[in-house]
C-alpha cells in the first residue's frame, strides 16, 4: 500500500474512532426509543426529565459551587506562585518549580486516597466533615498547579524585558504589574480560569472520595448511573456534560491560538 494512502486512511480512521462514539451518544440522547439499537423518532423528553430530576439538579448545583470556588482559589494561589517563581530565583524556588508538577502527574486514585486519609485523620481533632468544603480544597490542590504552569509558560524572558522597559519608563512596582504584566498574561489567565473550571467540573475520582452524603457532585452522580447501564437518561446527561466542557475547552483553544499568533 502506498505510504500516503496509508497515512490518510489512518488519519480518517482516528478521527472516526474519536468522534463516532460521541456523535452516537449525542444522537441517541434525542432518540424516542429507550433502546439504543433502534431509532423511533426525535424527542427532547429525556432532557426534560433530566431537569425534573431533583438529584441531578442538586448534584449540578454542588458541582457549580465547587468549580467556581476552587477556580477562584486556584487562580489566586496559582497566579501568585507563578509570579513568585518568575521573579525570585533561589534554591527554594527551584524546588517549588519541580514540585509544582506533582499534583498534575500524580494518579487521581493516589491523590484521592491521600486527601481522604488526611481529612479523616483531621476529623479526629477538628470539626471536619466530608462535603463541599473538602471537595473544594482537594480540587484547588490540583488546580493550583495547572494554573501555575499555564500562566508560568507565559512569564518569559520577553515579559521580563518588557517589565524592565516599563520601570525604565518610570512605572513603579504596581504600575508594572497593572500596565505590563497583567495585559501580557491575560489570555493565559483567561485560559487557566476556564481550564481549572473544566477540570474541577469534570473531576470524578477525587470527588468520589471526599464528598459526603448530600454533597455529591454531578460527575460522581452520573458515574453511579453509568455503572448501572446504558439508559436514555445517561445519554442525555452525558451529552450535556460533554457539550458544556466542549464549549469551554473550545474557548481555551481559541484563546491560546489567538495568543500564539500575536
Amino acid at each position, binding site marked *: 500500500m502506498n505510504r500516503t494512502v496509508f497515512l490518510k486512511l489512518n488519519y480518517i480512521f482516528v478521527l472516526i474512532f474519536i468522534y463516532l462514539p460521541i456523535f452516537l451518544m449525542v444522537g441517541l440522547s434525542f432518540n424516542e426509543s429507550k433502546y439504543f439499537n433502534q431509532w423511533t423518532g426525535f424527542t427532547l423528553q429525556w432532557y426534560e426529565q433530566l431537569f425534573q430530576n431533583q438529584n441531578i439538579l442538586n448534584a449540578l448545583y454542588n458541582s457549580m459551587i465547587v468549580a467556581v470556588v476552587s477556580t477562584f482559589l486556584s487562580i489566586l494561589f496559582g497566579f501568585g506562585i507563578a509570579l513568585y517563581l518568575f521573579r525570585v530565583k533561589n534554591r527554594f524556588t527551584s524546588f517549588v518549580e519541580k514540585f509544582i508538577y506533582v499534583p498534575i502527574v500524580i494518579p487521581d486514585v493516589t491523590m484521592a486516597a491521600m486527601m481522604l486519609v488526611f481529612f479523616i485523620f483531621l476529623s479526629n481533632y477538628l470539626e471536619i466533615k466530608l462535603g463541599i468544603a473538602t471537595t473544594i480544597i482537594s480540587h484547588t490542590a490540583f488546580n493550583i498547579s495547572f494554573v501555575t504552569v499555564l500562566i508560568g509558560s507565559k512569564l518569559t524572558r520577553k515579559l521580563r524585558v518588557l517589565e524592565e522597559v*516599563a520601570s*525604565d*519608563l*518610570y512605572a513603579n512596582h504596581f504600575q508594572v504589574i497593572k500596565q505590563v504584566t497583567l495585559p501580557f498574561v491575560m489570555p493565559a489567565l483567561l485560559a487557566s480560569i476556564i481550564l481549572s473550571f473544566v477540570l474541577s467540573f469534570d473531576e470524578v475520582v477525587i470527588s468520589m472520595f471526599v464528598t459526603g452524603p448530600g454533597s455529591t457532585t454531578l460527575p460522581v452522580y452520573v458515574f453511579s448511573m453509568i455503572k448501572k447501564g446504558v439508559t436514555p437518561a445517561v445519554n442525555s446527561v452525558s451529552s450535556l456534560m460533554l457539550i458544556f466542557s466542549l464549549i469551554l475547552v473550545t474557548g481555551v483553544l481559541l484563546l491560546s491560538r489567538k495568543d500564539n499568533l500575536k
Partner: protein
Amino acid sequence: MTYALKFENVSKSFSTSDAIKDISFEVEKGEFFSLLGPSGCGKTTILRIIAGLEQPTSGDVYINEQLINDIEPHLRPVNTVFQSYSLFPHLTVKENIIFGLKIRKYDKKEIDSSLEEVIALIDLKDHLKRKPHQLSGGEQQRVAIARALINKPEVLLMDEPLGALDLKLRERLQVEIKSIQESTKITTIYVTHDQTEALAMSDKIAVMSKGEILQVDDPETLYEKPTNKFTSNFLGNPNVFKGVIKNEKFISDEFEEIAVSNTKNGPASIFIRPEIISFGFNKVTSPNVNCVEGVVEHILYRGSWLDVIVSVNNTKIEISKENNFDLSIPDEGEKIYLYWYINKTWVVFDDQK
C-alpha cells in the same frame, strides 16, 4: 569639567560572564559615548547599572553630580532603548511612545506637544495608531527610540539598538540617530560590538574587554594610536607581528629589520594596517619608508576595494587598496614591493597592557 555621568571604581560580579571589574569613567554633558567590545565583555552590564536594573557590587555611580546607587530604576532620569526593541505588544505605537509621560501623569496638553516634538524628529506619523507587530524592524526601532527620547532623559542609553537590522537599514539609522543626538544634545551612552558603528557615531569610545575598560578616546586617536594590543587588534584588521625592538628596528623571525619610530627597546608587537601599505614593481629606497619584497598570493575582489595577500619571508601581509582607475592590479604569482611610512608602523610593547 561638568560631567553627566561618572563611574567610580564600579565592580559587579556574576556567577556567569558579563562581570565588570573596577570600572571608572566620565561622560561629558551632550557627549555621544560608546562602549565597544566583544559580546560578554560587560558593556551591557554597565548600561544596566546606569539604568538601575542591576546593582553594582561595589563602587559609585553619579548622574549630574548626584549619587544614584540606591535610586530605584523608575525614579532615575535615564531612559533606555533596548536591543530587541521591546515594544509593548498590547499598546499602539502612540501609547508606547507616551507611556513614560502617562505613567507620570502628565496632562494631555503636555503629552500632545511632547509627542509632536518627537515626531518632528522621528518620522512616525503614519504609524501612530498601529500595533507594534504591524511594523517592520526598522520602524519598531524608531518607535523604541521615540519612546525613550520623549522623556528628555539626562542620559539616553542605547543597547545595541541596531543589532537586529540588516546592513543598509543599519547604516541609515546610524545617520538618523547621530543627527537626532546632535540636534537634541542628549548625553548618550551607546553599546555596540560593531567597530565601524562606534567609529562613525561617537564623540568618545571606551574599548572594553573581559570586564575592563582598556582605553577611552575619540575615534581617531583610538584607531591611529591604540595604547594596547587588544584595541590595536580589535579595531580594523591589521597585520600583526611579534618580535623585539632594538635601536629603532623591529626584529622578528620573519623580518630582519623593520624601521620604527620608537626609541624604546624591548619585546613588542608591530601593527601595520592594510590600508597604509602601498605597492609597486620597483624597490623604493627612502629614509622615511620601509620596503619589503613579496609575491602576490591571492587577490580578493571586493568591489569598491581589493584585498591583496602577499607572501613575504614565509609570512603573509594583507594590503587593501581602493579600486580606482590608476590602480594597476598585479597578477597572482607576480613579484612586488610593499612600502609604508616608518612612522605609521604602530608599536605596542609587551609591557603595555
